[in-house]
């Protein structure tokens, strides 16, 4: 099946996120802003323009806004006409299609409330469960654009009940991806890993993001949460992952470092991966938590094979300074993540379990 293009709204959301978040370095905010404004103007996304102007503190070009709103209402009027025409002359399906067109248009210009109303109206006319679920998916994407994740959560729950009652496999697979994304956003890495890895074989939801991105999220979620056996089976040996992972920055070395115990390259790869996580709107907030989790896993794995090891040799294995490692170990031991004790005497330190 040919790959659907990514929903431009999510692309926009990612750009807006980059502009909004101040602590992501290496980002040309001016260029992004120009791009965003260009898209807004081209497609006459007036409600979104207003929303972004207030949120990001841009100055609102009133003339342009009026133009865009005029274009919007003109288009809406045309769609209304079509719908009336369909009601009078054509059959039910055409009516529904016309209403759907209107709802989609409202969704695409970013008018939240009107879109919801319109979608509800279409839902009443929709009989098939699969089409209903599709409607929910479009709404979910709309709300993701606005960052309204509580609505996203409720919509995903609704879609789940619909799919359980009787949905085709394609919709169920898509739903898995959406649920995985939601889990990732809400820091449930274990659930996210499970869902996303499952859907690598049957990925059709490329309106959310391209395939490579899915693999990135799946690997990132899997690393701190899966056991070594699971990791080998589902990630390291998985043909889907292997196909794409080399083009994701830092993922392949990190995976290798963790699974094949090549700790020397752990931290460099780790920094790369965390860097790209920071730039992504779904994972940005979890960077600190994630880095703690992953480090805890790495240190615990290293110490598993030793009864006692000197701090220097462990620091050499990870290619960091002993002082840094000392501070890290104290923190993780006090938090209960590592079951070890440091014995510091006469200048050298030994870690004992």
């Amino acid at each position, binding site marked *: 099946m040919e790959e659907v293009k990514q929903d431009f709204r999510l692309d926009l959301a990612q750009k807006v996120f980059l502009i909004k978040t101040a602590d992501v370095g290496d980002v040309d905010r001016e260029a992004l802003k120009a791009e965003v404004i260009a898209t807004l103007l081209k497609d006459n996304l007036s409600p979104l323009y207003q929303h972004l102007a207030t949120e990001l503190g841009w100055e609102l070009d009133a003339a342009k806004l009026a133009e865009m709103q005029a274009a919007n209402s003109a288009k809406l009027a045309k769609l209304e006409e079509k719908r009336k025409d369909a009601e009078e002359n054509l059959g039910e399906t055409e009516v529904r299609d016309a209403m759907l067109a209107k709802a989609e248009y409202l969704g695409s210009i970013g008018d939240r409330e009107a879109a919801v109303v319109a979608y509800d109206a279409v839902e009443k006319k929709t009989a098939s469960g699969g089409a209903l679920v599709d409607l929910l998916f479009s709404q979910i994407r709309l709300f993701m654009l606005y960052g309204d994740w509580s609505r996203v959560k409720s919509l995903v729950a609704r879609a789940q009940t619909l799919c359980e009652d009787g949905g085709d496999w394609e919709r169920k697979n898509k739903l898995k991806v959406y649920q995985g994304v939601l889990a990732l956003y809400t820091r449930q890495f274990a659930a996210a890993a499970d869902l996303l890895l499952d859907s690598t074989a049957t990925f059709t939801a490329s309106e959310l993001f391209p395939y490579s991105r899915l693999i990135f999220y799946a690997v990132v979620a899997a690393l701190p949460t899966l056991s070594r056996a699971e990791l080998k089976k589902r990630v390291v040996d998985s043909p889907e992952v292997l196909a794409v992972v080399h083009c994701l920055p830092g993922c392949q070395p990190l995976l290798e470092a963790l699974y094949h115990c090549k700790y020397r390259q752990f931290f460099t790869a780790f920094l790369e991966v965390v860097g790209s996580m920071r730039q992504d709107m779904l994972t940005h907030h979890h960077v600190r938590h994630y880095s703690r989790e992953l480090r805890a896993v790495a240190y615990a794995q290293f110490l598993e094979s030793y009864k006692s090891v000197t701090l220097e040799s462990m620091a050499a294995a990870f290619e960091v300074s002993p002082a840094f490692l000392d501070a890290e170990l104290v923190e993780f031991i006090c938090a209960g993540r590592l079951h070890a004790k*440091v014995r510091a005497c006469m200048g050298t330190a030994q870690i*004992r379990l």
Partner: protein
Amino acid sequence: MEVDKAEEAPKANGATEPTVEAPAVATVDAKLKAVLALVERSVKQKDTRLLIGRLLRQTASVRKQLTPSSVKAFLQQSLPADLESRVFLSAHVEQASASGMDADEATTSPQCEAATVIPEVELYAYLIVLLFLCDSQQYKLARAVAENAVARVGQFNRRTLDVIAARIYFYYSLTYEQMGELASIRSALLALHRTAVLRHDAIGQETLMNLLLRNYLHYNLYDQAEKFRSKAQKADQFRSGQQYCRYLYYLGRIRTIQLEYTEAKDCLQQALRRAPTIAHGFRITVSKWLILVRLLLGEIPDRQEFAQPGMSAALQPYFELTQSVKTGDTVTFQQVAQRFSSVFLSDRTHNLITRMHQNVIRIGLRRINLAYSRISLAEVATKLHLASAEDAEYIVAKAIRDGGIDAVIDHDGAFMASRERVDVYSTAEPQAAFHARIAFCLDLHNEATKAMRFEPDAHRRKAESSEARQERLAAEQELAKALEEDDGEDF
């Protein structure tokens, strides 16, 4: 301390435009009339319990809708025209409305029919005016009314008046506090308290004791407060839940300042648990004190406690403080304390923060003890930013002696070694933990049993007919529903 009152002042005064007022006045009118009927009925039956419950609840619901014209109408209706209180009160309401609102329409409300009224109605009218004035922040006028009210209450000795009188005392103290003249009424409150004790006026006793404690604590007179509290006569059971809450909070504060942190934590936790959920200001203040007491005891409060809805913004400085304490780093602790010093000063928790320096060091030491099985004292000194290895040795020795950490010091080798971790189930710790929990549950059970109230004539009552039973069930349901709608507005 002002937050204690802030929670009770409703957010918006019921000031709507005069033209829309006619229907609003009517409903307020109707409600107030209903309340008056209730008052008269309960006085006739000498049933004070009914007064405490329904009267106050209904007043709370009316409170938000009071406007000058509705209050005036009420006064005209309820009090006979020649009563001097009515003149006095109307004058004050006039003054209040003249300073704030637009011109009133001439309300044609029925004049009062009775020639005299029972004192309860009169003092209830005082109370309504006081509520109205306090809610519109006109404390000068309110103070004058309150003084007058207290004088009037002093002329009666009726038990049915107790509840209304207690409320009046509360607003009396409140107006003085808002005007910054609390000290002047202290002797008056003490005299009133004595009288209440002599007359076995339970609710008055409780309210006045809390007001006096608040008075002392406002001026940081912790010694006097404790002396008063220990010597004053209290009933074993507090009649009013809200008064008990307040009492526990004040007691907790006294105990904290007296360095008895375990008791203080107990009191504050109970106060927090019993507080109604809509009493935001009170809960925030109690939470702040509870967090600080727990930090002083050496335990770190959970993150969940800071994330409660509506409280997270106010507790943010305390959250950051907790985080810096958790790391055991005195440097960051000082920085955070500096950064939020204005907040702590306004919360009057500043001196507790200064006491915490030692605790931070102790917690840092505990972390080191957890992570290191053996570490030289010089390193301990560097990690804790102490002056020298000797200092570190003294501090470690004291901590071991106090039972804070489980270690031994080797003086010659200049290191500290933690002792082998022994299986906790072979000690008596699990037993102690179980015992504490069981004791708590049993206490709760005993208190609940003691607090049960039975109707005095229950044993004499004959079997009730089915209508009577239905009536009773309906009344109970209404009571249950009313209790569910939190009545934190009451006090």
